[in-house]
C-alpha cells in the first residue's frame, strides 16, 4: 500500500516525535528525582539509624 505524505503531514509527524522524546525524557527525570528524594528522606536515614550512625 502506498501512502502519500504531504509536507504538512511530515511536519506533524516530526512534532509528534519531538513531543514523545520530551515526554520520555521528562519521565526519566521524574523517576530519577523521585528516587533520589525517597532515598534521602527515607531509605538512607533509616539505614543510618539501623547502623547507629
Amino acid at each position, binding site marked *: 500500500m502506498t501512502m*502519500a*505524505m*504531504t509536507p504538512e503531514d511530515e511536519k*506533524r509527524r516530526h512534532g509528534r516525535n519531538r513531543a514523545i522524546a520530551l515526554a520520555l525524557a521528562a519521565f526519566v527525570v*521524574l523517576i530519577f*528525582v*523521585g528516587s533520589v*528524594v525517597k532515598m534521602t528522606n527515607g531509605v538512607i536515614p533509616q539505614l543510618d539509624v539501623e547502623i547507629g550512625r
Partner: protein
Amino acid sequence: MSDITYASNDGSTAAPREASAGDYIALLKPRVMSLVLFTGLIGLVVAPGAIHPAMAAIALICIAVGAGASGAINMWFDADIDAVMERTSKRPIPRGRIEPHEALTFGLFLAAASVFTMFLLVNLAAAGLLAFTIFFYVVIYTMWLKRRTVQNIVIGGAAGAFPPVIGWAAVTGGLELPAWAMFLLIFMWTPPHFWALALFRRGDYAAAGVPMLPVVKGEASTRRQIVGYTVLMLAASVTPLFFGIGGLAYMIGAAALGITFLAISFLVLREQEGTYCWAGRLFGFSIFYLFALFALLPVGTPIVLGL
C-alpha cells in the same frame, strides 16, 4: 509495512491526516484536567502533615496524567456519539486524525504509567484511589451509566470528585474523613454544573441518544433539579468547616458565591423554555465557583465548626 511517498506541494493536497502532538493533548481533555489538577493541589495543601515539594509535584503530575488517560479512553469508547454531537465533533477521533485503537492504547498506557509511578514514588493509598478513579470514570460512568440512565452524571460525577482526596492521600497516606468533605462539595456541584450545559446542548444529547436529564424529563424538570442540587451543594460547601478545612475567607466566600450560584439557578428556573441565557451563565459561573471555593480553602487560620 507501508511504503511512504511524498505528495507534491502544489496546494491540491487534502487536509493533513497525520495526528499532531496537539491532537494527542486534546485526547487528554486539558480543560477538565486543569480543574482536576487544581482541586488535587488543594487536597495536597490542606492535608495535615508535610510532603517533599518534589513528591507533591510528582503526585500532581500522576493525578493529571491519570485524568488525561481517563479522557483518552472515554474518547475511544464514545467516538460514535462524539461524531454526532456538535460540541465534540471536532475531537481528534471524529476528525479522523487519531484511530480509536490508538486512543485506547494511549489512554491505557498513561493510566498504567500514572498509577504505577504514584505507587512507586508516592504511596499505595494515593495510587489505589487514582486507579479506582480511572476505573470509575471509564467503566462505571462512560461504559455503564452514561448511555443507560438519567442519573448518569449524578453518580458518574463522583469520578471528578476524587482528585482532592487523592491529593490528601498523597500527604497522609490515608483516606481520612475530612478529605471526603471536599469530595462531597464537588459531587454536589457536578449536577447543576452539567445540567446547565445539557440544557443548551439538549439537541446534541438527543441526537446522540444520551439520556441526559433535559432529554428524558424535559427542561422544566431539569431547571427545578438544578435549583434542588444547588441547595444541596450549598450545604455541602459548609462541611469542610466542620473538619477544620477552610478559614474565615472560605466561610465568607462560600456564602457569597453560594448565594450568587443559587440566585442564578433561580433565574435559570424562571427562564422561558427554549431560552438558555441564564443556563449559559450558570455553566460559566459554576466553573468559577469551584475554582474560587477551592482557592479559598487553604487561606487563613482554619475554623472548626461544632455541631
